[in-house]
């Protein structure tokens, strides 16, 4: 790929208002309009956004890995797609959302360094595990911006259900 950093878009960070919630790596958050859930700097990580349009309620997970290979991995289990996706659905149901109303949007799952065999596939495996879990839970994926080799920050706007994807390479995209 031929490129030059002068081609990069100016990346404007979202204003820090009280409605903006940061979802850092391995965590998840649930909220209602007018909140905005932000998962910053996704590389191989995946931002999983679930939305209930009727209640204007949603949840976002910042998934790092597909699933644990060691049952004693410890720490925050929501860093694994296998745990995070069912947890998101449950969290929304606890708030009163019907599972049948939920829709999903995904972004992330890039390979920041392609030539390394372990690193090259982890993003894809994350996306695949997220989709597998969503299929099991019958939550349709409406849109995704995954793969490639660039970083993304994603914002779930709970007023509209729009997922904004920001990157240095492509600027802002709306899903």
């Amino acid at each position, binding site marked *: 790929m031929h490129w030059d950093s002068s081609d990069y878009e100016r*990346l404007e960070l979202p204003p820090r208002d009280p409605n903006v919630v940061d979802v850092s*790596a391995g965590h998840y958050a649930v909220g209602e309009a007018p909140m905005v859930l932000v998962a*910053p700097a996704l590389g191989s990580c995946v931002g999983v956004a679930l939305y209930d349009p009727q209640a204007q309620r949603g949840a976002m997970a910042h998934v790092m890995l597909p699933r644990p290979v060691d049952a004693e*991995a410890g720490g925050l289990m929501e*860093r694994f797609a296998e745990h995070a996706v069912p947890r998101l659905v449950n969290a929304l149901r606890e708030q009163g959302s019907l599972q049948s109303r939920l829709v999903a949007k995904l972004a992330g799952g890039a390979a*920041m360094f392609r030539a*390394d065999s*372990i690193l090259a596939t982890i993003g894809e495996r994350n996306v695949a595990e997220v989709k597998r879990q969503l299929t099991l839970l019958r939550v349709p994926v409406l849109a995704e911006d995954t793969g490639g080799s660039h*970083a993304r920050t994603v914002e779930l706007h709970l007023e509209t259900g729009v997922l904004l994807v920001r990157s240095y390479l492509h600027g802002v995209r709306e899903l």
Partner: protein
Amino acid sequence: MRVDSLTTMQLDALQELGSIGAGHAATSLAQLVDRPIDISVPVIELLPVTQIPEVFGSPERLVAAAYSRLSGDLGGCILFVAPEESARALADHLHNREAGATVSFGRTEEQLFLNTAHVMASAYLAAVSRMVDMDVLSGEPQFALDMAGAILQIAVVRVGMRADMAILVRTQFKGEGTVMDAALFFMPDPDSLDAVLARLGLV
């Protein structure tokens, strides 16, 4: 072994290893840019894998990075990271241009950055190899220019499926009278960390 069960003595030994490696890397960088380079005392960071994306400040900060996989007797990786403006300052020095002459990061600057990273990683690992009497080499470095948090996630991938804590050995480099500021992360895999400690007689 779990890194959160490392003893103070083991951590001190790893810091010493980092100091010696970083000293050699700084000398090689100083020779490249022909000016003195200061290094910080290496920081051993033992932290939850979920905090790794934030060790370089804001996860969205634009940084240049060179990633090399370790080969030989140790597994793991070595990562050289510099904020974009520092990477441009480095290019100014290496091209013998005035400060600020490099305004963007193109293919030439990318190659210069990779070469610098390779020289520093090799110097670092040569010193580590001598101390632990093992062969440790760095593979061909790969380049990325993007958000710091996304790049640092590679450390998570290597350890996060088996453990929730990771160890980072970080050293900062500063050029005299410039904005040049960079960091080198030495990240041996958990099994390799055991092997290093065994060689140092600290298991």
